[in-house]
C-alpha cells in the first residue's frame, strides 16, 4: 500500500501554501527549452516532468547569490550599524531533484563548522523540501558514482515518485514532510516502480587516492587548457558555497553583502600585492576538484559533489566534474602504462 497524490492536488497544495503568506519554489520552464528552479507564483507553473535537471540548483533558496549582512550609515564622525535579519518565512521547495536535496545536507556541515551561519540555518529551519524521483537521466548525470541515486532520500522531507497516470506516490521522511502532506494523500494499492539511475561512471576511491598522492599532477595543465575560467560550473553547482564579502554603498552609507564567488575566477585568490598564488587555470581547476573530493571529505567526512551533472551541462566547453575526473583517470592510466613501458 502507498500514499498517492494527483498533480492537481499537488498544485492546490502549493497554492494553499502560498495563500498563507509562505513562499514556494520549484522547477519552472522559464523558456520552452530552459527549466530552472524559480520562486513559484502559483502551483500551475510547477514542472513535474520533461526535464532531467534544472540548469541551476536549489542552493539559491538557502544561500542566495546576494545577501545583506548589515547596513551602515555615516553620521558625521559616527558610524551606525544595523543587523539584517534573514527571512524566516516558511518556504516550500517542491520538485527538487534528489541530488539537490542531498547537497543541502552536505552543506549543513560547512555552515555549522567553526562559525554557525545564522542566515543558512534559519532558512534551513523554515524550509520543507520535497524531492521528485528521477524518471530520466542524461549523459551528465553521475549520482550513482557518489553514492546517491534517482530516489536518494538524503536531505529530503518527502519524496515523490512518478506513477503512470500523472499521479505521484508520496513517501514522507520527516515530521515536516508528514505535516505538509497530512490529509492530502489517498491510500492506494499502486506503488511506484523502482527507478534506474546512470551506471557507475567513475571510481571515486581511485580519484581520492590520486588526488592525495599527486597534488602536482601534470595532467591539470592539459585538462584545464580549454577551461575558460567562468563560474557557470560553480554557480549552478548545488554544493559550491564560496562567497565574497563586499561593501556596496556611497558616502552616506550602504550595506555589507555576501555575494557568490568562484575559485575558477583569477580574482578569487588575487592578493592586494598583485601576486596570485593560483595564477593558472590548471591550478584553479585542481582546487575545485581537490576541495570536492579530498579536502571537504577530510574535514567533514562527506564528498562535496552529488553527481547532478550541472557543471558539465552548463559548461560552454564540455568540462565539468565528471569529464575532469574521467580525464584524470585516463592520465593516471596512461602514465602508469608509460612507466611499465
Amino acid at each position, binding site marked *: 500500500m502507498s500514499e498517492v497524490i494527483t498533480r492537481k492536488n499537488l498544485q492546490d497544495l502549493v497554492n494553499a501554501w502560498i495563500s498563507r503568506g509562505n513562499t514556494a519554489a520549484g522547477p519552472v520552464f*522559464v*523558456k520552452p*527549452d*530552459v527549466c*530552472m528552479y*524559480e520562486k513559484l507564483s502559483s502551483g500551475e507553473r510547477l514542472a513535474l516532468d520533461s526535464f532531467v535537471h534544472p*540548469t*541551476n540548483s536549489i542552493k539559491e533558496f538557502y544561500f542566495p*547569490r*546576494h545577501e545583506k549582512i548589515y547596513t551602515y550609515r555615516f553620521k558625521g564622525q559616527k558610524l551606525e550599524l544595523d543587523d539584517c535579519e534573514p527571512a524566516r518565512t516558511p518556504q516550500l521547495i517542491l520538485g527538487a531533484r534528489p541530488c539537490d536535496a542531498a547537497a543541502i545536507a552536505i552543506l549543513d556541515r560547512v555552515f555549522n563548522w567553526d562559525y554557525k551561519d545564522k542566515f543558512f540555518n534559519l532558512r534551513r529551519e523554515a524550509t520543507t523540501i520535497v524531492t521528485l524521483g528521477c524518471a530520466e537521466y542524461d*549523459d551528465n548525470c553521475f549520482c550513482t558514482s557518489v553514492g546517491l541515486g534517482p530516489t536518494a532520500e538524503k536531505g529530503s522531507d518527502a519524496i515523490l515518485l512518478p506513477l503512470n497516470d500523472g499521479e505521484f506516490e508520496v513517501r514522507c521522511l520527516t515530521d515536516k514532510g508528514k505535516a505538509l502532506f497530512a490529509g492530502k494523500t489517498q491510500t492506494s494499492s499502486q506503488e511506484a516502480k523502482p527507478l534506474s539511475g546512470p551506471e557507475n561512471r567513475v571510481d571515486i576511491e581511485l580519484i581520492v587516492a590520486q588526488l592525495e598522492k599527486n597534488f602536482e599532477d601534470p595532467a591539470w*595543465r*592539459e585538462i*584545464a*587548457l*580549454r577551461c*575558460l*575560467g*567562468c*563560474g*557557470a560550473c*560553480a*554557480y*549552478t553547482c548545488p554544493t559550491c558555497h564560496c562567497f*565574497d564579502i*563586499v561593501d*556596496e554603498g556611497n558616502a552616506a552609507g550602504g550595506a555589507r*553583502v555576501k*555575494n*557568490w564567488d*568562484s575559485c575558477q*575566477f583569477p*580574482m578569487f585568490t588575487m592578493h592586494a600585492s598583485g601576486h596570485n598564488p593560483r595564477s*593558472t*587555470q*590548471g591550478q584553479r581547476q585542481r582546487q575545485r576538484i581537490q576541495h570536492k573530493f579530498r579536502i571537504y571529505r577530510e574535514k567533514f567526512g562527506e564528498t562535496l559533489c552529488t553527481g547532478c551533472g550541472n557543471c558539465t551541462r*552548463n559548461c*560552454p*566547453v*564540455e*568540462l565539468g566534474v565528471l*569529464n575532469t575526473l574521467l580525464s584524470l583517470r585516463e592520465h593516471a592510466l596512461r602514465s602508469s602504462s608509460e612507466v611499465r613501458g
Partner: protein
Amino acid sequence: MIEQLRQTCRRLLEEAKVNVIIGYGQSSADGPAFPIFITKPEQVDKLVWNDKCYANLTTYLTRNDVKALGKPAIIVKGCDERALVVLQQESQINREALYVIGVACDGVGNPRAAKCLVCDVHRPRFADEVVGDTAATDAGGGRYLELGEFLKKSPAERMTYWMEELSRCVKCYACREVCPLCYCNRCIVDKNRPTVIDTSATLKGNLAWQIVRAFHLAGRCVSCGECVRACPAGINLALLNLTLARAAEEHFQYRAGIDPQKTPIIGSYSLEDKEEFIL
C-alpha cells in the same frame, strides 16, 4: 573533408610551421564537440569537424595558458573569422604569427542555430587555407528580423522583458569568458578600487553589467552567438548586441569583422559623424 583537415594539421606540425592546433574534438560520435589543443602530429586524428562544433575558438588566442604553447594554427568557421578580423584591428593578435585554417560551414546545430539561418559568411574569407566546401548560400538581410520583432513591443513591455530575463543572471560571467572580444585583462566589473559596477547579482547590478558589456561591444560584436549559447539562464543577450550592431550598420554602414580595411567606428572620429541616434 575531415581527412583533408587532419592532413593539413599533421603537415603543419611535422614541418614545425606551428606548435599547436586549436581545433575541435569529441569523446564519442554522438557526443558534444569541444575545444582541443593538438601539439603532436600523431594526435591529429583526434580532430573532428561537424555541426556540433559550436565554440568560437578565437577566444583562446588571447589567453596566456594557450599563448605559452607557442605559435598556433586555429580552425575557424566564417562567423568565428569575423572575430579574428576585429582582434587584428585591435592589435590583439599578430596575424603573421598565426596560421588560420578555415572550414566551409553549412551551419551548426540540429536544428540550425539562429545565427546560421541569417549567415552570410559560410566560407572563411581570409584564412591561409579553406578546407571543405558548402552549398549554403548567403541568407542576406535577415539578421535584424528577430530584433525587429522584439522592437515592436512597447518600451514598457521591453523593460518588463529585460527585468524578468536579467533577474535570472547570477553573474557567472560565462558570457564574458566565451566572448573572443571580451579580452580585457581586468574587466571593469572586477575593478574594486573603487568598485565601478556592483558585483552583486541583483537586478540593478545585472542590468549595469549587461548594459556595460553590450556598450563595450558596440561596433565590435561579430554576432557569433557564443554568449547566448553559454548562458545557463537562457538569457537572449544577442538582442542587446544586435541593437548596437544595427545602429552601427544603419548610421555608419559598418559591420564588425567584415572588412579589415575599414576603420573601426569606435576607433575613429569624423566631423561628419551623425549624432541623431543619441537620445
